[in-house]
């Protein structure tokens, strides 16, 4: 059932991603950095909001007038800032929605990833409340509608005896202090919680990507600026509580639920919202994902080098004081509650070398379900049989190109993530004559199921990151094919044939 949902979601997601994949290279594709892009939009919201705050007046008449001043008289700066404030907020909703859908359909929310998923839910609520309180502050007809409907929603919670909505039905009941309260919520209270929420959201991630690529930031900012200049955000008429506005230009990104209050009832809207939130919160356990065994440290071979700590994308490995008699001061320790068994720590371990001839191949850190030893055996089994050029394909399990190469009957060695493959295994494959060429197939950066598999692999092969590949390896015999996990025609066979052709030459 859940797998079917994932498949359907991937198909729907494909509608968005196909034109995007044509337009962008991997590192510049906004779909690969949706979380970071959301944070960037929130930066725009914050900076433009500070400008608006300088001119904003927290009173019933002052609120509308000050926003009108910014929009009309100071259109060249205040008006642009106001529009940026709105449009960046709206853009953040799109990236958040896509971020949630992407993490869901690619199954990156279960097992030990539940914490990041669950902490995203209050973040979404906070961002919506921030947006709604922002509309409230303008105190135009839309604000009047938002105020009354929000108060009706609050009134339906059976903890208040006096009706809050009644305060928004005549001007004489509305006080300036109310605007001070709303301004406090929108400008200080909620943003502080939001920053804390974002910190909590990425708390379990090692090296969270907070900023997208500069080019992506620049392009997004330019898009928002152009939109702000061509189509500036404007207010409705000033709120007049004796009248009910007949037609409103709703911001559907933030206010899509509000018409439902009239169509259903405030109570049912709460049921709807709380219901959706509850479903999202319990999703990681519905059903729970079968957990593979976490990485295992073998102290006899752990020298406390910390590379596994640096490379683990989920902060599951830490260094603790040594517990054995050796002279090393520290040893690696795996938190099973955080480890998602990607094997990237094995790829980082300098003792995971297939060249070891004495004793069992047991690295300092290893995956019990996909050991470094088994990986070496698979390479040997897939090795060269005759005199013709032979290529061994290493593929990560989530790689969309895997079915293609398996169907073609190529010699494939599977790893959990390409980051699990220590560079010494590439050296071993070539120098021991198991193959004449090596093709590495995996998920492109930004789409790696385990976050940093592609990035670390590239850096290790480029001799920029430990453990580096030995300089003796002829890199012309090594080809890499990264693909987004949604790619249909991944093109692995073409890459294979191109490598084979170059080997024959």
């Amino acid at each position, binding site marked *: 059932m859940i797998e079917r949902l994932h498949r359907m979601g991937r198909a729907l997601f494909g509608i968005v991603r196909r034109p995007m994949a044509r*337009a*962008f290279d991997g590192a510049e594709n906004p779909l690969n950095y949706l979380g970071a892009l959301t944070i960037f939009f929130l930066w725009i919201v914050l900076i433009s909001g500070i400008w608006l705050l300088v001119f904003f007046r927290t009173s019933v008449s002052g609120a509308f007038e000050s926003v009108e001043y910014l929009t009309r008289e100071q259109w060249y700066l205040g008006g642009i800032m106001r529009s940026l404030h709105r449009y960046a907020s*709206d*853009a953040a909703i799109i990236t958040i929605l896509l971020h949630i859908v992407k993490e869901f359909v690619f199954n990156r929310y279960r097992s030990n990833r539940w914490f990041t998923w669950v902490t995203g839910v209050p973040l979404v609520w906070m961002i919506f409340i921030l947006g709604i309180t922002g509309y409230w502050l303008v105190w135009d007809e839309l604000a009047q509608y938002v105020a009354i409907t929000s108060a009706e929603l609050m009134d339906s919670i059976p903890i208040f*005896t006096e009706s809050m909505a009644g305060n928004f*039905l005549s001007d004489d009941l509305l006080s300036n202090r109310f605007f001070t309260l709303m301004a406090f919520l929108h400008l200080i209270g909620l943003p502080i919680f939001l920053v804390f929420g974002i910190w909590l959201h990425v708390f379990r991630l090692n090296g969270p990507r907070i900023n997208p690529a500069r080019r992506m930031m620049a392009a997004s900012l330019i898009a928002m600026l152009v939109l702000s200049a061509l189509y500036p955000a404007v207010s409705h008429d000033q709120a007049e509580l004796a009248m*009910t*506005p007949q*037609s*409103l230009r709703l911001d559907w990104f933030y206010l899509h639920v509000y018409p439902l209050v009239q169509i259903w009832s405030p109570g049912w809207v709460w049921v709807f919202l709380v219901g959706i939130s509850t479903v999202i919160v319990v999703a990681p356990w519905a059903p729970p994902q079968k957990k593979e065994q976490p990485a295992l440290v073998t102290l006899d071979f752990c020298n406390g080098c910390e590379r596994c700590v640096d490379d683990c994308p989920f902060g599951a490995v830490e260094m603790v004081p040594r517990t054995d008699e050796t002279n090393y001061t520290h040893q690696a320790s795996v938190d099973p509650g955080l480890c998602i068994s990607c094997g990237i720590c094995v790829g980082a371990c300098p003792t995971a070398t297939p060249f070891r001839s004495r004793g069992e191949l047991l690295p300092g850190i290893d995956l019990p379900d996909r050991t470094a030893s088994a990986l070496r055996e698979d390479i040997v089994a897939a090795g060269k049989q005759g005199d013709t050029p032979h290529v061994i394909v290493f593929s990560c399990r989530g790689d969309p190109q895997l079915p293609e190469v398996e169907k073609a009957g190529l010699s494939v060695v599977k790893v959990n993530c390409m980051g699990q493959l220590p560079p010494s295994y590439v050296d071993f494959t070539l120098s021991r004559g198991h193959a004449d060429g090596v093709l590495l197939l995996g998920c492109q950066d930004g789409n790696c199921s385990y976050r940093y598999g592609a990035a670390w692999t590239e850096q290790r092969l480029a001799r920029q990151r430990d453990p580096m590949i030995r300089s003796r390896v002829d890199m012309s015999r090594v080809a890499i094919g990264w693909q987004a996990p949604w790619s249909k025609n991944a093109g692995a066979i073409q890459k294979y044939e191109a490598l084979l052709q170059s080997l024959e030459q």
Partner: protein
Amino acid sequence: MKRLAEILMYTVFAVVVGALSVWPSYELVDGDHAIVSLVFSHAGERIGECRKFSQEELNELPPNMRKPADCPRERHPVRVELRSGDQVLYEETLSPSGIWADGKASIYQRMMVSSGTHALFVGMNDSGEQSGFDYERSVTLDLTPGRNLVIRFDTQTQQFLIR
């Protein structure tokens, strides 16, 4: 070509953002309708009279529990009716709030009515009587389209306010 496609993608993104931030517009009230809002909180009368304690009864009570009279906490529900001519717009018996049913009864109702002249009658009964009203007010008004007429009950003057 790739750059053009990239610009196109950002343009589409900006257009979606700009469009959905204001479009489609939402029709809140039909063109020839007005809103009548009935909103107030009012505590009904207590369900019984207070009874003075006799000296003997007071003597039997612990010193910290002694009080001059025993008053029932519960209050009567509040019955409210709003009519426009012969048409009943709202009729409800509101329960007092609180687990001891000793709090105020609250009402917040917004009703859409056609614009034009309305002979409005609003009545409230808070004494538990089955018929008649303890407080009532009638007024004839011309409601323009989009008008938000608010009917409240002023607890100080004990009368309905219609604005």
